[in-house]
């Protein structure tokens, strides 16, 4: 049958060549460039707008400069920190913690989510507790974390995992709940069980909801990490500690500089999730454009 396809190809190519001449000319390459551009310019525009408003507010002396400094003060500050290497250090520490904490959360949240989604008793017993735990602010957990682990890395991890794992578990659970039953039935008929069931049916079917859960989990993890670093601050320079000390000395430009860094990381991570999400939707045929 394969030769058949090969035989058919040139014919198809010729037909398409005709169409190309009509309107598809050079479409693919130009397409990609246009696509990148059309997803970039709005971002740049929004950025320029935000900066403009910010500067305008400063020029209008909306608030005294020491509470609301302008870009002209914040960016040099940021640059200083980049230059003297302190930014690299804080960034590295924090990202390392974030990634480890998030990885643990994915495993823990994934396992809990899978268990709760599968076993009705577990769901009845602790389903709601998962969200309940999530509503306890990190600041409440910290005393316990400190109690358990002292002022150590583990204490921070504990808080991060407690923040992120529930979201991830919830994502998985809602993914399972909203999987079309016909696909589950198809899997049953095919005899998918155990590992195969997870690998070939449940995981891919719930992937969209799971990615959404991961995204939310990341936001929780990151917030918890900041709070953790801010409070369980033991020497290692980190973004959260930086945030705390900027605030402690009422250093507004420094605070905004740190916020910008945190925001940028948040945005970048979301872009990564967004890309994963788009790839998924393309595969599933959910892209309507």
């Amino acid at each position: 049958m394969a030769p058949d396809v090969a035989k058919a190809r040139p014919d198809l190519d010729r037909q398409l060549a005709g169409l190309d001449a009509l309107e598809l000319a050079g479409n693919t390459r130009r397409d990609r460039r246009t696509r990148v551009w059309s997803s970039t310019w709005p971002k740049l525009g929004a950025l320029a707008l935000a900066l403009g408003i910010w500067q305008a507010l400063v020029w209008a002396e909306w608030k005294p400069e020491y509470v609301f400094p302008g870009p002209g003060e914040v960016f040099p500050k940021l640059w200083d920190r980049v230059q003297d290497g302190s930014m690299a250090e804080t960034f590295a520490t924090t990202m390392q913690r974030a990634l480890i904490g998030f990885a643990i959360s994915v495993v823990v949240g994934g396992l809990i989510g899978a268990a709760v989604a599968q076993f009705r008793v577990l769901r009845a017993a602790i389903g709601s507790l998962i969200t309940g735990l999530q509503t306890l602010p990190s600041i409440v957990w910290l005393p316990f974390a400190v109690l358990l682990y002292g002022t150590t890395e583990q204490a921070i991890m504990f808080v991060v995992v407690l923040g992120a794992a529930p979201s991830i578990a919830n994502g998985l659970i809602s993914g399972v709940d909203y999987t079309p039953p016909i696909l589950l039935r198809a899997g049953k008929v095919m005899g998918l069980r155990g590992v195969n069931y997870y690998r070939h049916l449940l995981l891919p079917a719930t992937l969209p909801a799971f990615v959404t859960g991961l995204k939310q989990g990341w936001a929780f993890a990151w917030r918890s990490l900041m709070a953790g670093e801010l409070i369980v601050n033991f020497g290692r320079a980190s973004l959260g500690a930086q945030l705390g000390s900027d605030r402690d000395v009422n250093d507004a430009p420094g605070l905004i500089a740190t916020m910008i860094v945190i925001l940028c990381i948040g945005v970048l991570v979301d872009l990564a999730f967004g890309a994963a999400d788009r790839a998924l939707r393309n595969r599933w045929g959910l892209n309507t454009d």
Partner: protein
Amino acid sequence: MTQATTQAAQSRTAAAVRLDGVSKAFGSGAGALLALDKVSLDVAPGEFVCLLGASGCGKSTLLNLVSALDRPSAGTIDTGDARVALMFQEPALFPWQTVTGNIELALKMRGVPRSERRSRAAELLGLVHLEGFAKKRPHQLSGGMRQRVALARALALTVDETDSGRGTLLLMDEPFGALDAMTRDLLHDEIERIWRERGLTVLFVTHNVREAVRLGDRVVLLSSRPGRVVEEFEVPMPRPRRIDSTEVSTLAATITDRLRAEVSRHGS
């Protein structure tokens, strides 16, 4: 495959599927709906049985019960140790898999070694006239093409590489509903060949009476809501039969009349 045939022949004494007083109600209280009412039916191993009945009479429900996806409200269903391959009325393909991925997964579940899967899947795709579409995803296919992929997947499930010696029960729910007559005629031949080669037991739901007569050893007629077995027709013609032969037409006409009476009696 010869082995499977022998196997099937050996156990031909017992029924491959035995339904005994099977009823199925959906919901409860005032909104309840009785879909099947005391259906009793035996299918012999290796037999090809076609189910006919008006829309909504409970054919799909019956297949779901036989494949143990649902449980009957009353009565018993015995399929022995047979493996079940079911082709749903909808394609029910996994959207995250390519066409070949969908079929290969079914082959994998039937113990086909990884190295053979790709070529076996290509073979099945050729059978349903979808060479060249292996790498597409379900949403890139037309309705009829999706149905054919689902058919290929169901056929993949009738493979048995584990040499378990267990018979296979193939349930098909209007497998050719979205196909043109020519493609359908070609697929009739293929299905018949595979059924014979693999010694399958087939329960086949269709709305096309000629198709039922073309394929079945026996045609079972269900009444409209709630579904009951109202009549069974043995199909005596030798195989292979031609769908536009006079014998097929004549029997089809008889059955159609009976069906028409049944439908009009219940108002559909």
